[in-house]
C-alpha cells in the first residue's frame, strides 16, 4: 500500500492504522522506519515533488518482491512542505519472521533513496531550493547527453 499526503504525515495515526490493518494477518514482525526532518543547513523545512505514475510502478515491483518472501510493504510520503521535526516518510515491512523484515526494510529504503521519483527542496530564507548535492541520479541516467 502506497499513500501520499499533502504536508506532514500524521505518524501515530498511520502507524496505528497499519498495525490494526494487519493485526490478524499472522505476521510475526512489523518493522517501521520513520523519516523526520532534522534541523541542519539552516533550513526551516523541506518540500517534495512526487511523480506518482513511476512511483506507483516502482512500489508495485517491490511489493511483488516482498510477496515472494511472504512479506508486505506499506509506505507513506509527503507532497509539498514539511517543517522541522515533522515527518515526511514512513516505510514498514510486515513479515512472518523478523529476519526477512529487518533485511527487507534496509534494501527497500536504500532503493527508495536511489530510485523513487521524488525531488527534495530545502525551505530556507523564504526560498525553495533543490537539494541537488544530496540527490542521486537514477540508474541509467545520461541517455540523452
Amino acid at each position: 500500500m502506497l499513500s501520499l499526503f499533502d504536508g506532514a504525515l500524521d505518524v501515530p495515526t498511520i502507524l496505528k492504522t497499519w498495525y490494526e490493518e494487519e493485526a490478524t494477518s499472522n505476521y510475526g514482525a512489523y518493522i517501521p522506519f520513520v523519516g523526520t526532518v532534522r534541523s541542519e543547513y539552516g533550513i526551516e523545512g523541506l518540500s517534495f515533488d512526487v511523480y506518482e505514475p513511476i512511483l506507483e510502478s516502482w512500489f508495485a515491483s517491490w511489493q511483488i518482491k516482498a510477496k515472494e518472501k511472504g512479506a508486505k510493504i506499506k509506505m507513506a510520503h509527503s507532497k509539498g512542505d514539511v517543517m522541522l521535526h515533522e515527518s515526511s516518510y514512513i516505510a514498514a515491512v510486515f513479515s512472518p519472521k523478523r529476519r526477512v523484515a529487518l533485511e527487507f526494510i534496509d534494501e527497500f529504503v536504500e532503493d527508495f533513496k536511489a530510485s523513487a521519483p521524488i525531488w527534495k527542496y530545502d525551505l530556507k530564507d523564504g526560498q525553495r531550493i533543490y537539494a541537488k548535492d544530496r540527490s542521486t541520479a537514477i540508474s541509467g541516467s545520461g541517455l540523452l547527453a
Partner: protein
Amino acid sequence: MVRVEFLGPIQKEALELDISNLNELAKILQADAEVSDWLESCAVALNDTLVTSLEAPLKDGDKISLLPPVCGG
C-alpha cells in the same frame, strides 16, 4: 506528436515535438540551453517506464519524461 515533460526541479514547460526516436530528441535537447546541462544526470521514461536505449521507436501520443536526480524521504 510526442509530448516531452521535465520533472521536479527542471524549470521548463513541456514540449510537443514531431520526432520518431530518442536520438532525435537527444539532438534537440542538447541544443537547448535551458535543459542541456541536466541531460547527463537525467533518466528518461517513455510512457512512464524507464528506458535504457535510444533506439525505442516513438509514435504519435507518446509521453517522454526526464527525471533529474532524486532524493525522497
